């Protein structure tokens, strides 16, 4: 790995490994991962369950619920509902829990960088 590979040389003045281990950054990373990974895994399993039901249990999916509306149509529309709901949930989580902390850390890094260059 040559020094030309480092995207912006001046940023090398920041001690990234030390910053990565700092408690505030560890907390940001934990908040991010503890939300996105379980939520995405759940959404994927729910989608997979739906696809498997649609292919292997189509007779059950045909069971009418109200009038011609059957279980399959309801589950399909529920996929839309859960996608919209997860989207909104993530946005409100990110606004409250991720963005303020990320902005604080970014500010700290920029201060360090200026001090290092000066």
């Amino acid at each position, binding site marked *: *790995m040559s020094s*030309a*590979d*480092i*995207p*912006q040389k001046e*940023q090398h003045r*920041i001690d*990234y*490994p030390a*910053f*990565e281990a700092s408690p505030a*950054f560890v907390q*940001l*990373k934990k908040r*991010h*991962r503890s*939300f*996105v*990974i379980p*939520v*995405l895994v759940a*959404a*994927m399993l729910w*989608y*997979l369950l*739906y*696809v*498997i039901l*649609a*292919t*292997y249990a*189509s*007779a059950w*999916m*045909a069971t009418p619920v*109200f*009038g*011609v*509306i*059957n279980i*399959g*149509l309801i589950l*399909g529309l529920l*996929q*839309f509902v859960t*996608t*919209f709901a*997860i*989207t909104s949930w*993530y*946005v409100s989580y*990110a606004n409250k829990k991720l*963005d303020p902390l*990320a902005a604080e*850390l*970014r500010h700290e*890094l*920029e201060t360090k960088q200026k001090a290092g260059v000066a």
Partner: protein
Amino acid sequence: MNAGLILAADSATSQNNPLLNMSIFLAFVAVTMFVVIRASKNNKSAADYYTGGRSFTGSQNGMAIAGDYLSAASFLGITGAIALSGYDGFLYSIGFLVAWLVALLLVAELMRNTGKFTMADVLSFRLHQRPVRLAAAISTLVVCFFYLLAQMAGAGGLVSLLLGISDKVGQSLVVAVVGVLMVVYVLVGGMKGTTWVQIIKAGLLIAGAAIMTVWVLALNGFDLSHLLAQAQTISTSLPEKAYDALVPGHKYGANPLDFISLGLALVLGTAGLPHVLMRFYTVPTAKEARKSVVWAIWLIGIFYLFTLVLGFGALVLVGPSVIEKAPGGVNSAAPLLALQLGGPILMGIVSAIAFATILAVVAGLTITAATSFAHDIYANVIKRGTVTPNAEVKVARRTVLVIGILAIAGGIGVQGQNIAFLVALAFAVAASANLPTIIYSLYWRGFRTRGALWSMYGGLASSIILIALSPVVSGTPTSMIPDANFAIFPLNNPGIVSIPLAFALGILGSVLPGGKKENSWLASEMDVRSLTGHGAEKEVHH
């Protein structure tokens, strides 16, 4: 279904007015060209050309993403699939939508924070630059090329319906016109112009679908279950091949594993599509990248709900046998429904929108492929980063010309091929070759260069080889080569094998002993930058 309707659709091509269709389409080209020329005034730097100066807002970019994503395959393909296969067409749209959660939760913001112009920027950030960049660029070019071919094939098919041109020379001419227009848009407008074309197109497409949806619902007294009940009655009383349009299994019931394979490719492919990933760089911050995905999810989701109504509307109001017999077959369901609802004028508008859709998607793919070639292969792999940005953009512009020629030649070659097959192939390749490496390099510290190369090349090769050995290419009457039979792989979509294989290769290549040492400082830097946005590429101000 009454006899008059069959007659009406039989004469669809004669009743539909090619001159009217042409003028509506030309009006779209004129308006967008005007916008592109205005938008291009500020194209000075490489960042301007590749990313529109990173100056789009989240909502504008969300519209453009929807414009990029809602290709002709979505609009014509899904409406037609629901009209002819009922519920099974709906399954496609669900996969296409849920896929956005992967992009929203795992990929969009972190990519925006660590990359500059291309997917390869992120993948090669902390691994060994040249081999990883080359692999990422190759898979970008392959995915874009298949996607491009699908759109070009769609253009030819659509034209046979629209302009009543059914001979091969006429269709080829139209493919050439599409190719030339696309080159002009991309050369003149760069990313900024392309983005505006997509925004305008997304607005037209969603508005057109909304009007038709309300119209279909109004004819059914705004009672969805009334429409569904009619669809059920018609589909269960078809003279041949009767089925229940409200129950899954009509199309995929015979080979359930194949559908699961397709479902995997659809849901994991989106977040690996290079032209979608590149759109995250056109906004100033990661927060705006998130906002754009949120806009895209709402717009795309609502659009797919419209196609549900349109598909069943076409089944009820036009009828499956009429659609099957029409020139353009399954893809003609949406234009025929428009003809049925609003006569030749609405059909002209809808067809022009569909055509504009192809043009905009093709432009987006072209700029992505050209950027990847110029920025990754030329500037960083061949010239080892010693090129000025101006020289790089010059190469990108020349690449646009080459891609234009390849797309026209390929587009003429694939006339009459199955569009859905080409799009599904692009998704399967993206999910296998790109997604594992994207996720590992953003989330797994132990991921190493060898794992990236194994996963990308392994995913690329396995998905393409399995497609070549599948029934889509040979062995059945509907195959690309119906007379030969080397289909030893039983599924139409390779996803169920190639995606887990690529994920596994990424792990194996990283944990097995041997291979080069990685730079842990860069890994820390990537970790910090991806989450905080420190050092992210800034918006260009003029």
